[in-house]
């Protein structure tokens, strides 16, 4: 079980929850279970969400493991120049 923090706007689509607990071993499972438990998040996940694991931002790595006790933070997927 990992605790996942959602950024402000995303929390509104997850029933106002800024922190949710999810049983997930990697980013792939995290996204799947988030979409199952909070259907409002699915369009955001489809558009692209970044996952910060202990401060390091991952954008495309579904297989990235979510260590127990790690800080998991969802962030908007940003554009760069």
């Amino acid at each position, binding site marked *: 079980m990992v605790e996942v923090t959602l*950024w402000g706007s995303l929390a509104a689509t997850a029933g106002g929850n800024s922190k949710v607990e999810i049983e997930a071993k990697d980013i792939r499972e995290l996204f799947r279970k988030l979409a199952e438990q909070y259907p409002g998040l699915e369009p955001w996940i489809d558009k692209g969400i970044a996952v910060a694991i202990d*401060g390091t931002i991952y954008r495309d790595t579904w297989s990235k493991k979510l260590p127990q006790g790690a800080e998991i933070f969802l962030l*908007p997927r940003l554009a760069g*120049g």
Partner: protein
Amino acid sequence: MNFDPRFSGRKFTSVGTRPIRPDGIDKVTGRARYGADFNMAGQLVGRVLRSPHAHARIVKIDTSKAEKLAGVKAVITAADLPDLTDGDAAMYDVLDNCMARTKALYDGHAVAAVAAIDARTARQALKLIEIEYELLPHVTDVDEAAKHTAPLINDAIFTEGLEEKPVKPSNVTKRSQFGHGDVHQGFGQADFIVERSFKTEQTHQGYIEPHACVANFSSDGTADLWVCTQGHFVYRQHCAQLLGMEASKLRVTSSEIGGGFGGKTHVWAEPVALALSRKAGRPVKLVMTRDEVFRASGPTSATSIDVKIGARKDGTITAAEATLRYSCGPYAGSWAEIGAMTAFACYKLDNVKTVGYEVLVNRPKTAAYRAPSAPMAAFAVESAVDELAKKIGMDPVDFRIKNAAQEGTRSSYGPVYGPIGIGPTLEAVKSHPHMKAPLGKNQGRGMACGFWFNFGGQTCTDLNIGMDGSVSLAVGTVDVGGSRASLSLVAAEELGIDYSQVKAIVADTSSLGYNDMTDGSRGTFSSSMATISAARNAIKILRERAAQMWDIAVDDVVWEKGHAIARGEKHGNLGKLSLKEIAVESGKTGGPIAGHSELVADGAGVSFATHICDIEVDPDTGATRVIRYTVVQDAGKAVHPTYVEGQYQGGAAQGIGWALNEEYIYGKDGRLQNAGFLDYRIPVCSDLPMIDTQILEIPNPNHPYGVRGVGETSIVPPLAAIANAVSNAAGVRMTHIPMSPPRILAAIEAEREWSK
């Protein structure tokens, strides 16, 4: 990804040296081929007809007269680019921006295009296209557009991100919020509070090379596109989707690039050129004029930002809050969201809240511009931080050091930081001789910090070893700042050979797997990771071949300093085999030797910079002169220090132009008044001092060599550093960018009036 990206702390031989770039001679002798330098037999000239109106319904387009003109081979409108976006709203916006469908949404919006045998005929044909417009009320100012009374640009847009779904449409497309703690409580603990509003005008990236491409659609349904871009794989995806093609049937080759800075991450002319070529059955070259680049490519946002920061007498910030409004052009974007994330990222804050509003205006569609959105937020925040330090009576550097984020700090945008470089850049600035240099009359010094995320992304690289022992490195990230040199250094380092033995190229989209764009400061970070991985795969094969040549077990062969070495007493008589000696025999030991890598380079590592600027202000005219400028930035590891310094200097130079001169000026009719470099003045050499740099190297733990991106962060602090310098020199707080002479003079005169 079968590759360990963790920092290894190795000692370097090639990395960190400063050889000449492989593309240098071609560029200084004019042989390098940019977007407009490619030509094909039978090529037509493409030209685009653009709306002269800021906001208008397209009632009717009659192209019949243009089509009849001798020499015209194709005329297209939106009807020739049908909507194939299948509900993808972002791609629909791209399509509509390439060619207006029902409404022209800004001065310069494309409404039709022609392909003709020469430029003169094409221009004549444009004049023969008859368009009936129904003019609509327009709005170009970000604050005006956000009002309930503003003309609506898209009545299907309802503000996202509000607690309750609004019942009325709005030009505000989205609200986003970040932060933690309780700002009201935090402000209650403050002894001093600074609260101010700031504005920044819209600017363009100002790349010297206009957008240019040649499209060639074949009758078999395949096509080629030669184009100046920051991301030819992304252009392939977008063009293929918009034209209803399979991606593999469109081959995109990137040219040399005369600047991009985020502005060449987006398609405008390319789908149009392909559609013209498809209709004409001939190659079409489409090159934007400078006027078109300003009016119809993708400048950055204009902004309006409110900042409030409170601190105790001892200099501890107790709360920080910002509301940021960013213009997006006429299509939804996430530019204020990025500003809201980056605004306070340099600081350790218990109570912080930022709210961003994305605002539609009748201006060109906003595109990324080097650390997009961060410079404007930093301008507002760092100006207020400077003012607060003064109010408390603290040195502005010491105030920032006291409040700087560090490893373990919860960032203002959410996650907790790992090892970061804001503290070291501030300490380096504090002890830099620049900070102690005397200032003359009417001169002021300012400093400011900046933050940028940096990205990685999908990356694919091929490394081929020729039979003469030379190495070809094919990468898929466009070289915008010297990355072919830095990636050659990385290949040389990993293989243990000389830099001169490696030749790096940017491969086309049919020759290599998909690569994300060169954006987010990812070029060297990502492709160096893939190059290291590819080189290690090649070394594995080199060891196998050496084992064959010696007829020993491969496990007994190690790779050291460019040579295979047989390990173990029983192989004591065997000498070393160089890469070249192994390559020469490759035809007999199993064929070509190559290493390939495909990976997602994540963990780019955030980046910080602190800048110092000295400015002289003429109090009678408001004219300014930059006297001295210093950039201090963390590079993780500078692979090629000269090009890292170049990125630092380039960001500062662009920032100086943005801060002091550059702005889009719209008339009351909603038309752009200064679409050219005479009236939109970017800095030239004579405007700038030599920009000093100091590279800090705090290794990124998520890269084998510790590399971080360096391309973007350097444009984040300049607006604020220069504003602080001008404010100190002029004796009045500057709150509106650009600080052009009339604006400075007006501020000085207003201050004089107020002081009377």
